[in-house]
């Protein structure tokens, strides 16, 4: 069977179309099908984790932090890369830089826009908020090479954790 469009090559795509309630069959070669934007196979559901882990890999290649470990549960960035699973809530802080990049790739955003959590333990929330602020200050201090300040912030963070 030749292609309905170019009338030259063999038709390999047989398309059943429903236009205004009428069924019609179109037979196209690969090139003409592609030109019409028709894919020849049903795409596999795209699993974001593949891209995601690849990104961790790239990130890890650039950073010497591959062996970096979460102080709370001992998970390393390398473990995460192998399993795709973080070890605990503190890993989000320990690998924040890498994760931020990855979350953006997977979700297109890093900012939660949904329900806010009013904790069972208000003290825990306050503590988390303080920790969040301290971690941001620590990042800035490291960037500014203010190492004394960074050390003191790190101690405060450890104390709260």
């Amino acid at each position, binding site marked *: 069977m030749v292609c309905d469009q170019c009338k030259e090559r063999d038709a390999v795509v047989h398309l059943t179309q429903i236009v205004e309630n009428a069924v019609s069959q179109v037979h196209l070669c690969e090139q003409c099908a592609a030109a019409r934007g028709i894919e020849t196979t049903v795409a596999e559901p795209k699993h974001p984790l593949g891209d995601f882990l690849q990104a961790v890999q790239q990130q890890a290649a650039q950073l010497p932090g591959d062996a970096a470990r979460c102080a709370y549960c001992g998970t390393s960035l390398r473990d995460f890369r192998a399993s795709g*699973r973080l070890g605990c*809530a503190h890993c989000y802080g320990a690998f924040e830089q890498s994760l931020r990049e990855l979350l953006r790739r997977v979700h297109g955003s890093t900012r*939660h826009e949904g329900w806010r959590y009013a904790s069972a333990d208000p003290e825990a929330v306050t503590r988390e908020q303080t920790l969040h602020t301290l971690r941001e200050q620590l990042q800035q201090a490291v960037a500014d090479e203010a190492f004394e300040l960074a050390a003191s912030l790190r101690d405060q963070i450890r104390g709260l954790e």
Partner: protein
Amino acid sequence: MTLDLSLLPDGGLHWLTASGEHAGIVLSSRIRLARNLAGYAFPPRAREGERLRVLHQLREAAGRVRSLRDAAFVRVDECTPQERLLLHERHLVSRELAGLDQPAGTAPGGGAVFVTGEAGVMVNEEDHLRLQVFRSGFDVTGALRDAAQLDRELGAEVPYAWHQEFGFLTACPTNTGTGMRASVLIHLPGLVLTQEIGKVLQGLQHMGLTYRGLYGEGSDVLGNFFQISNQTTLGRGEEELADQLVRVVRRVIEREEEARRVLLRDAGYIIEDKLWRAYGTLRHARTLPADEAMNLLSGVRLAAGLNLFSGLSVYTLNKLLIFSQSAHLAQAAGRVLTEGEANLARAKYVRTVLASEAQLSG
């Protein structure tokens, strides 16, 4: 421990009742929220003792949570492999929590599930908590409302792992943020037969949605049943994510109905013949492998949707789908069945149910 599912509220199968909107096409709607408890490693990293402490804390808290007060509680890690498969076939427990892929059929320690009429809470799956609410038919909004309520009540009793910027923290970063997966289990034989399905599934991915088979992640698409759900969980609110799913699924339903109309008009007798043959096989076969049964049931479901048969309810079709599966047949037989025995038992069960329904006229 002997697992008696009849003790569960509605057998955990309230969603089979086919009471919701578009119940012929959409079997069920589901909201799943992933949550973790602050202060413990996530289950894949946690030691057994830690997982048991999590379970203990949750069990204690559940008594104070109104939505869970009357829930049945099942220690999945203490169930036999057969019982775990049974819970999985009912969609009460995921493949992972049932330990179906583990060697020697061991289930992860501390694994458990709370079950109420329409809700369930899996404990120590990939995350400490997987809150689930099922609704019969197309009712994502209703499921979301109930899930929000359950989440608020439970979150007030146990401290969740939470981050000001990232939201709810989960073991896998693909769930971070809302931790929400909103999904519908939908039957699309019309789009498959008209070969429109490829385009529709591709379209889903452009709309931030994804699809899987009947039993979720990693399961095959069988009997033209698809599970459609949101792909991302961060950066958009729960209601917005659910609304997007509802909008797109509404459009998919329209296209499915359109495809069915076209099939009936342009290939009426071919379709009719095919579907009656499916019914004939189910009604009279003496042995039925699981995959074949699923495909034939899909045909009969389509026939009922096209009003080719009268007297066969969607509820019966839903029931057949679950109760004709291996672990359910074994439960009914009271013993473990070989594959051959299960095929015989399946054929007999399906014949009996169809015979007891009103005589069909075509």
